[in-house]
Each structure stands twice: as C-alpha cells, then as structure tokens.
C-alpha cells in the first residue's frame, strides 16, 4: 500500500514539476525535502534523547511495568494482544492528549517495537498495531497546546476557545476509527 502511494506521488510530482518548472527545480525540490528530513531528525534527536532518557529511568524503576499491569484490562479491550506494550501505548496516548507530539513519538515507536516482538508474521500489522495507529492518526487531544499558542501569537482574543471544539472533533474521529478497526479486524 505505502509502496504504491509513494510511487504514484513521486512519479506524478516529478513529472508535473519537471514540465511546469523545469528539471533543475524538480531536483532542487527533492533535495530540499531530503535536507528537511535531516534537519528535522537532528532537532527531534534532542527531544528523543530527553524523553527516552526519562523513559529509561521510569523503566528501571519498574514504573512502566506497573503501568502496563494496571491498565492491561482496558487496554486489552482496545488493543487486543498488545500485552507488554501496554505501558508504552499508555504513555504515547497520554503525551498525545497533552499535545506533546515530540514525546509521543519515542513512546509510540517503543510500543511498536514491543508489539512487533510478539508478532508472528513480521511483515503484517497485528490488530493491535492497526488500532494503535488509527487512534494516533485521529489525534485525540485534551489540550491542543500548539494550536492555542499559534492562535495567541496571531492575536486571538480567545485563543483557547477551540479546546472544546477540538475535543469533540477529535473525539468523534477517534470513536469512528476504533469502531471501524474493530469491525474490520473481525472480518479479516
């Protein structure tokens, strides 16, 4: 799926840009994209260091295992077969809800690693992974901190007026995503 989408986007984007703006422009755009990835990774690197370091301390202290154990039951309903990834999943969702995307990603990748460990077919996503990513993609946020900040900077008189609307909108999207995943997981 990803392979097809990427190929189509790459082909269409390259041909379109080459004919409309010239080959040099197309190559420069590709190069700019690749360089953006590198700078982004470097700036993310700092955030990952911080959060994975703190995660390391929490792990050693047994906090993540305790969290997994406590939340295993509700988590097992939402993410069937998530098992030991429960703690990391919880941290990822909590970070997302608080609008801390930079912290959410390392927790989420750790959760994926743990779920992949017990996956029988390493190339195929498990039910739990599909739900996890669908929930991540629907961006459930309690406090959309980034957006509130941006609205404030743009001179809004009520920057946090969007808290409730965002919660309703992303809540609906999350419910639909979970519902669809459960429906589709049962059928396949």
């Amino acid at each position, binding site marked *: 799926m990803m392979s097809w989408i990427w190929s189509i986007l790459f082909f269409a984007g390259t041909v379109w*840009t080459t004919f409309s703006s010239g080959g040099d422009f197309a190559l420069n755009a590709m190069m700019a994209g690749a360089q953006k*990835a590198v700078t982004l990774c470097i700036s993310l690197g700092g955030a990952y*260091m911080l959060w994975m370091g703190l995660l390391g301390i929490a792990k050693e202290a047994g906090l993540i295992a305790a969290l997994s154990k406590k939340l295993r039951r509700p988590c097992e309903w939402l993410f069937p077969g998530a098992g030991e990834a429960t703690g990391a999943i919880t941290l990822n969702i909590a970070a997302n809800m608080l609008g801390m995307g930079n912290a959410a990603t390392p927790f989420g990748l750790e959760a994926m690693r743990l779920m992949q460990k017990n996956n029988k077919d390493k190339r195929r996503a498990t039910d739990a992974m599909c739900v996890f990513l669908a929930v991540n993609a629907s961006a459930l946020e309690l406090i959309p901190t980034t957006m509130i900040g941006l609205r404030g900077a743009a001179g809004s008189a009520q920057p946090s007026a969007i808290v409730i*609307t*965002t919660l309703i909108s*992303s809540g609906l*999207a999350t419910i639909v995503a979970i519902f669809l*995943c459960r429906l*589709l997981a049962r059928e396949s």
Partner: protein
Amino acid sequence: MSAAVIPLLAAAVVVYALYKKVNVYDAFVNGAKESLPLIARILPYMAAMLIVIELLNTGGMMDMITNLLSGPLSRLGLPAELLPMALLRPFSGSAAMAFVSDIFDKNGVDSVLGMAASTMMGSSETIFYTLALYFGCVGIQKTRFTLPVALIASLVSVIASIWICNLMFG
C-alpha cells in the same frame, strides 16, 4: 498550572527511582542512547516522505489538485477556503499550517472560519508521515486497513470541525 505537571512528574520519577535504588544516571544515559539508533532508523522514512511532499508542494501539483477539487467539494458544503488545508493536512503539517495563517489573516483568528481551521488543525494528524514512520520503523509492509481507516477518521474530523464551529461560533 497545568504546564508545571510534566516537569514535576519527571522530577517525581527521578525521586521514586532513587528510592527504588536505581542507578538513575546510568538509566538515563542508557535510555537516551537508544534514541540514536532510533533516529538513524526513522531518517530514511522521513526523507522518503518529505522528498515527495516537497515536490508536490513547491512544484504546484498540490495547488492544481485543490483547485480541481474545490468546485465539487464546496458544493457539498465544505467552505472553499478550508479545502486546501483539509487536503494537505494528512501529508504535511507545516503546509497545512501555512493555509491556516492565511485564513487568520484574511478572515480573522476568531471568525467562524478561523475557529474551524484551528479546530481542524488540532484534531487531525499527518497521517501518511505517521504511518510510514511507525510501520517502517518495525518493518511492517502489510498495513491492512490502517490507512483507509485513518483517512476516514480524518474526514470525520474535518466535517465535525466545520459542524461544531458553525454551531458554537456561527
């Protein structure tokens, strides 16, 4: 107030770890060490995604597609001003954000459109990038129904944002 919770929580974790007789310093360094291979693993996926996104954005193909779709979609009740950002959001947060600030400038931050744009931005995610990153990182190739479900969820948040903002601020 709420901003104090996270750093204080981090401090509490450290104190608790000390109490549990954990070598806190080593635990931090070992945890942080794992971020290096992680970065190395996700960089190629980011590069693949960002190369395509940059091509589509600066090459003007995205503009062409949004122009093409804005007619039929605005007839379905989606305000034409919000369309480019709704279409761009799954691919690129920064590109979608550019359209949001455009709406802020033209219509006002606290207008119904400004509210709807803010809500849409806060309640959706860069889906393609997230999926590529998370699945790519552990080597999953068969993503099954994840992408269609994520896209439908994103559509739900677009419609819900417009609906709720019209209701509350309209």
